[in-house]
């Protein structure tokens, strides 16, 4: 894929280009309280006029020590905590954690549970992308899409609420399968939602895709090449928009994604506009996946045979899933007791955020906002 002998010297992160006049260099502190940093991200910008010479992210304002908490809770007790990391894609976090522990226990969830998991996770991907779209457009100055996407996201949250009683931090899955059987009319409601959503996605695209200002604001902004993406460990839609056709759902299928037919949308330029298009296409693909899953929802048990007290054998496992933001990995070390010896979360937002500096060099201040938006970071996950 990449030439292994290429050194990445052009990604020299520490020496910014020399400013035109030293006296003109302006240091601006953006955040942690700023309307466009999506939470408590603090960015220190070094500017020459409005041109960005370099920037440094200061993170950790939302650090809660999730990994430390994990070491002091049992496997089951830690499950709700992972929802609090990427709180806009809580279901994906839960899926990743449950699958990792299942792997450690060497069990597999029954097919019906897998299907429901896929449905809920893909719904969550749509919800996450909708939230991203609304806030990203808001950052670029289009205030209306925000309300459209929130209106439609509400329907997803309603399905969650009916299924498990919670809307945001759902704790929808259990280690070994599901706790709850789907409610009566679940399938019909999901189908109704899909027919409701399809024209809505067209509506978002109508608002933005060919809007001249939108195109001018996003085309060739925050460009990043596939090579840089890989060197920086950037995953998810950002990587795909740079032209790398890589999605863990296809590359290393988990749950039962291999049963479904879907495409991996990719871009070519790796700019903000391509990332927008990729995410829009991903929403359509998710709709497609859910359609297949809900039409082929098998009957059967929803819970695998998992002991009441979970005590995996000593050993360690790394498992990752394709969260809406990129590769979400869990590295769990067991010492044979009821509590994990070490839980490591590999957060996609944290690693993707590292690319901000590369993507913003030489752009204008307004583009920094656009790029922060297009990276789709959630500070709860960056800081954990």
């Amino acid at each position: 894929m990449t030439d292994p002998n290429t050194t990445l010297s052009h990604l020299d992160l520490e020496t910014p280009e020399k400013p035109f006049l030293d006296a003109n260099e302006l240091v601006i502190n953006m955040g942690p309280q700023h309307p466009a940093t999506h939470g408590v991200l603090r960015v220190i910008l070094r500017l020459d006029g409005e041109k960005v010479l370099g920037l440094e992210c200061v993170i950790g304002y939302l650090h809660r020590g999730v990994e430390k908490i994990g070491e002091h809770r049992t496997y089951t007790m830690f499950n709700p905590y992972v929802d609090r990391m990427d709180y806009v894609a809580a279901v994906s976090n839960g899926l990743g954690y449950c699958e990792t522990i299942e792997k450690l226990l060497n069990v597999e969830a029954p097919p019906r549970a897998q299907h429901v998991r896929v449905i809920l996770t893909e719904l969550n991907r749509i919800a996450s992308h909708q939230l991203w779209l609304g806030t990203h457009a808001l950052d670029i100055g289009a205030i209306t899409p925000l309300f459209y996407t929130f209106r439609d996201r509400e329907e997803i949250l309603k399905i969650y609420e009916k299924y498990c009683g919670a809307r945001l931090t759902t704790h929808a899955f259990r280690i070994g399968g599901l706790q709850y059987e789907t409610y009566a009319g679940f399938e019909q409601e999901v189908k109704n939602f899909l027919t409701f959503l399809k024209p809505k996605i067209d509506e978002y695209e109508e608002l933005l895709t060919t809007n001249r200002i939108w195109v001018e604001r996003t085309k060739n902004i925050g460009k990043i090449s596939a090579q840089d993406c890989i060197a920086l460990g950037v995953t998810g839609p950002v990587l795909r928009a740079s032209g790398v056709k890589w999605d863990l759902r296809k590359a290393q299928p988990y749950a039962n994604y291999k049963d479904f037919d879907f495409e991996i949308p990719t871009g070519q330029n790796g700019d903000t506009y391509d990332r927008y298009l990729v995410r829009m296409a991903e929403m359509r693909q998710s709709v497609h996946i859910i359609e297949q899953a809900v039409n082929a929802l098998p009957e059967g048990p929803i819970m695998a045979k998992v002991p009441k007290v979970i005590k995996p054998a000593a050993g360690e496992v790394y498992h990752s899933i394709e969260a809406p933001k990129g590769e979400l990995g869990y590295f769990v070390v067991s010492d044979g007791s009821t509590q994990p010896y070490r839980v490591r979360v590999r957060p996609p937002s944290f690693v993707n955020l590292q690319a901000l500096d590369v993507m913003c060099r030489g752009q204008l201040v307004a583009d920094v906002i656009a790029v922060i938006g297009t990276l789709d970071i959630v500070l709860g996950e960056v800081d954990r």
Partner: protein
Amino acid sequence: MGAILQYVQSYLSSDKTPGAAGNMFWAFVYIMLVFLGLSVAVIAMNWLERKILAHMQVRLGPMRVGPHGLLQPIADAIKLLLKEDIMPAEADGLIFWVAPFVVVLAAFTVFVVVPFGPTHAITDMNIGILFMLGVSSLSVLGIVMAGWASNSHYPLIGALRSSAQMVSYEVAMGLAVVSAVLMTSLNATGTGTLSMIGIVQAQLAQGEWFIFKFFPLGLIAFFIFAVAMVAETNRAPFDLAEAESELTAGFHTEYSGFRWSLFFLAEYSAMIAVSSIAVTLWLGGWLRPFPNLLSGSTWNEVFSLVPGATFLFFAAICFYNTARMPKHPYFRVQTIGLAGFGVVLGLIGLVLFVPAVSSRVQDIFWFSAKVAGFMYLYIWYRGTFPRYRFDQLMRMGWKVLLPMGLGVLVLTAVVALLQSYLWHP
């Protein structure tokens, strides 16, 4: 006593503006009327913007204060006046204090020459349009002062952006204006005018709004002005100076309470001011639609009914919504309030049907209606467009609008010359 009464009455039958007639009393009355009308318009704009924007964005907007949030602007005003007035410790006190007043002064002074009707202007200046452009450009000073005096990065960048933007778009705007002014010289004497009233009268005399003149030249000039005026007032999609997601609030980040509300007031009255320029120059000012196509006393009668009918229509909307109000004791006050508002609107409408009133208010109505159309456009832009980036904005101003303006100006001059030589030798 009698002399004073005569002084007051002497103006009533005059066909001049109070300024031109040199009548201090009526000039003062007009100033008060314009000031009050403008304040009411800004308050109404506040409510309308929130409601219209809300409905564009599938939400309801203010609903709690008064029926359908009708009293929301008043609640806002009270809130702003009662808010603590904060001045940053490191700010430059005097300039920080003066800046909002400069902006408001510039925005309001402009209305001295706005012609709401052939006699309904405070005064008619020989250089009316020049005066408007000049004074409205002074508000840049206030913005720059506010940004600098706050002694903070975001306001400074916001101020630099907005002043650069206003200075550059003024050029394109000026060219568009000049091409409209050129059209006023197409008469027997060959002399044009810069007077606002004169420009509208020229359109009346030529029997054509300047937007349709030398089609499509007038239209292009109007388009240039329409774009430049949005940029000039720092509104979406050119609202970089107060780009919320980038610069928190731009030049007025550090302002609060009353001073902040002055900026707000100035922004909206500047919007109304530039819209009035556009209406005056291209859309026939106070002239009713189709004055020469649908002429004759019958049509005059029909059009004189429109102001009253409009208000009755609004009253009908109010009554319809009163009927739709939930029948619950909790909503009783709101229902009564809405009905009362409808009654007030209806009464205004009925008063406007009185011929003596309607003949005097006609001009003002048509002028305001046209300006209101522009106000709606402003809200519509805000609801649909993302924000331009600064360099793109500048590129558009200098590389698109300026050459276009120059071209239109030259072409207008050429066509006008040809016309006067070929068809009227």
